[in-house]
C-alpha cells in the first residue's frame, strides 16, 4: 500500500514536469489558430495567421535563407565530420589530443564566444556578413556534433573487418565505401539531421554573423518578438516546431537502431 502510494506520487511528479515542459508549447500551438489578435481569449478557430505568413515576403525570404544555409552547411559539415570521425577512429597520430580538444571545446564553451570570435574574424579579414559567413559559422558548430554521433556509431565497429578488406587488396577508399560507410551510415544520417536542426534553430551564433540581406527564421522571430507578441509568430513557431519534431523523430529512430 505504501509502495503504491509512493509510485503514484512519483508518477504524478513526472506528469507535472512533463506538463511544465509541454504546456507552454501546447498553448503556443493552440493560439496560432486563435482568431483574436490582441488578447489571450479564445474567439474561434482560424488558419488566417498561416495564410498571412505565406504572404509575408520577409518571412519567405528568411525561410529561403534558413533552408539554403542549413542544407549547405549540413552537407559540408557531414562530409568533413564523417571523414574526421573515421580518421580519428582509425589512426593514432601526433596532435590527436589537440584535435580532440579542438572538436570538444566548441561543444562546451558558451555559444556567444564562438559568435563574436567569428564576427571578429570576418570583420578583420573584410569578408562582408552574409550567406558565406552564415554557412561557414554553421559548418563550424555542426562538425563537432557530427564527429560525436559518428564516433559513437564506430565504437561498436569491428576493426578487423576493415583490416580484412585491406588484406584482400582493397584500397582505403574502397574499404571506406564498401565496408565502413554502410556500417556508419545510420550514424552519418542521424548526425546530418541533427546538424540540420541545429542550423535551422540557431539564434546566438547567427545573430553575430548574419548580414542585413541574410536574416534566418530564428533571427526574424527574434526581431518580431521584440516588436511584440503577434499570432503570426505563433504560426511561424508552430511550423518550425513541426519541422524540428519530424527531423528529431527520424534521427532518434536511426540512433536507436544501433543495436539491431
Amino acid at each position, binding site marked *: 500500500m505504501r509502495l503504491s502510494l509512493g509510485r503514484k506520487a*512519483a508518477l504524478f511528479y513526472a506528469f507535472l514536469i512533463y506538463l511544465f515542459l509541454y504546456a507552454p508549447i501546447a498553448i503556443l500551438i493552440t493560439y496560432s489558430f486563435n482568431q483574436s489578435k490582441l488578447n489571450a481569449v479564445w474567439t474561434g478557430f482560424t488558419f488566417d495567421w498561416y495564410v498571412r505568413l505565406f504572404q509575408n515576403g520577409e518571412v519567405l525570404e528568411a525561410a529561403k535563407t534558413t533552408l539554403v544555409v542549413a542544407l549547405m552547411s549540413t552537407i559540408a559539415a557531414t562530409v568533413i565530420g564523417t571523414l574526421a570521425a573515421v580518421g580519428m577512429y582509425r*589512426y593514432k597520430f601526433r596532435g590527436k589530443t589537440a584535435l580532440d580538444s579542438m572538436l570538444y571545446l566548441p561543444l562546451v*564553451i558558451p555559444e556567444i564566444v564562438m559568435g563574436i570570435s567569428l564576427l571578429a574574424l570576418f570583420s578583420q579579414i573584410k569578408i562582408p556578413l552574409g550567406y558565406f559567413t552564415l554557412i561557414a559559422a554553421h559548418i563550424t558548430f555542426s*562538425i563537432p556534433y557530427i564527429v560525436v554521433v559518428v564516433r559513437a556509431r564506430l565504437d561498436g565497429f569491428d576493426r578487423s573487418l576493415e583490416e580484412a578488406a585491406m588484406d584482400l587488396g582493397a584500397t*582505403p577508399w574502397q574499404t571506406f565505401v564498401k565496408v565502413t560507410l554502410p556500417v556508419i551510415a545510420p550514424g552519418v544520417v542521424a548526425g546530418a539531421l541533427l546538424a540540420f536542426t541545429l542550423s535551422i534553430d540557431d539564434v546566438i551564433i547567427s545573430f553575430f554573423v548574419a548580414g542585413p540581406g541574410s536574416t534566418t527564421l530564428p533571427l526574424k522571430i527574434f526581431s518580431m518578438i521584440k516588436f511584440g*507578441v503577434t499570432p503570426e509568430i505563433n504560426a511561424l513557431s508552430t511550423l518550425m516546431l513541426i519541422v524540428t519534431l519530424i527531423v*528529431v523523430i527520424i534521427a532518434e529512430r536511426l540512433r536507436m537502431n544501433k543495436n539491431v
Partner: protein
Amino acid sequence: MKMETLPTTAETGLQSQPKQRQPRDWAKWWTLSPVTLWMTCFFLIPLLLILLVSFFTRSSFGGIEMPLTIENYTRFFDSLYIKILWVSCLLSLATTLLCLVFGYPFAYIIARSPQRYRNILLFLIIIPFWTNSLIRTYAWILLLRTEGVINTLLINAGIFEQPLTLLYNNFAVLVGLVYTMLPFMVLPLYASIEKLDKSYLEAAADLGAKPWQAFWKITFPLTTPGIVAGSLLVFVPSLGLFFIPDLMGGSKSVLIGNLIKNQFLTARDWPFGSAVSIILMALTLLCIVAYMRTTNDKQGKELL
C-alpha cells in the same frame, strides 16, 4: 648502364617499400586534414584573434588601434562589471540548482520506470532538448505577459482584478532559463542513474539500510558524474544565453552575455567585449577542469 639503373631504384623505391604505407598515409591525410584545417581557421584562429583584440585600444571610430594595454581587463574589475558577473553567476547558479532539484527525481523516476515505457519517456525529454530555445522562450512570454494566458485566466476567474507583473524581471528570466536548460540536466542524470547497479541497493537493504540511507550513501555518490556533468551543461550555456534576459528581463537585468553582445553591437568597444569574452571563456574552462578533477572523466565523455 648507370642511366638505366637509376630509374629502376626509383621505381622500386616508389612501389615496393612505400606500397604498404603510402595509401594509408594518403587516407590519413584525407580524413584528418579537412577537419584540422577548418577548425583551425574558423574556431582556433578566431579565438586567438579575440584574445589578441582584447589587448588593443578602442579607436574613436569603433575599430581597434595601438597601443597594447591590459586596461580592458582591469576595467572589468570595476565594481559595475564585477557586479554584472556576480549577478550572472548567481542567476546561472540558481538555474543550475533548480534544474538539479527538479530534474534529479524526474530523471530517477524515468530511469526506474518499466523498460517498455522508458524509451518513450526519454524521447519526450529529447524533443524539448532539440527544440529551438528562442521559440520555447517565446512560449513563456505568451503565458506571462500582462495580456497573457495566466493573467487572463486569473482575471476571468475573478481571483485578481489587476493583471500581475510576471514578465520583465529576474523571476521571469529564471523561469525562462530553467525551462530552457532542464533537459540538459535531465539527460546526463538519467544516463548515470540508469547505469547504476541495482544490486548495491539490494545489498544495502539486506544489510538493514533505510531507503533514504541507501539513497544518500549509494545512489547519490555513484551518480555524482551525472550531477556534475548536468550542472556544467546548464551553468555554462546559461551564462551566455543573451536573448532570454533580452526578451524576458527588465531593462535592469544586464547579464554577462548581454554585456558582451552590447559591447560588440551597440557600444562598439570590441577590445572590451573581447576581454569580457576571454574572461567568460576562462571561467568556463575553470569549470571544465573542476569537472574533470571531480569525476576523473578525462575526455569529458559524460558530457556528450
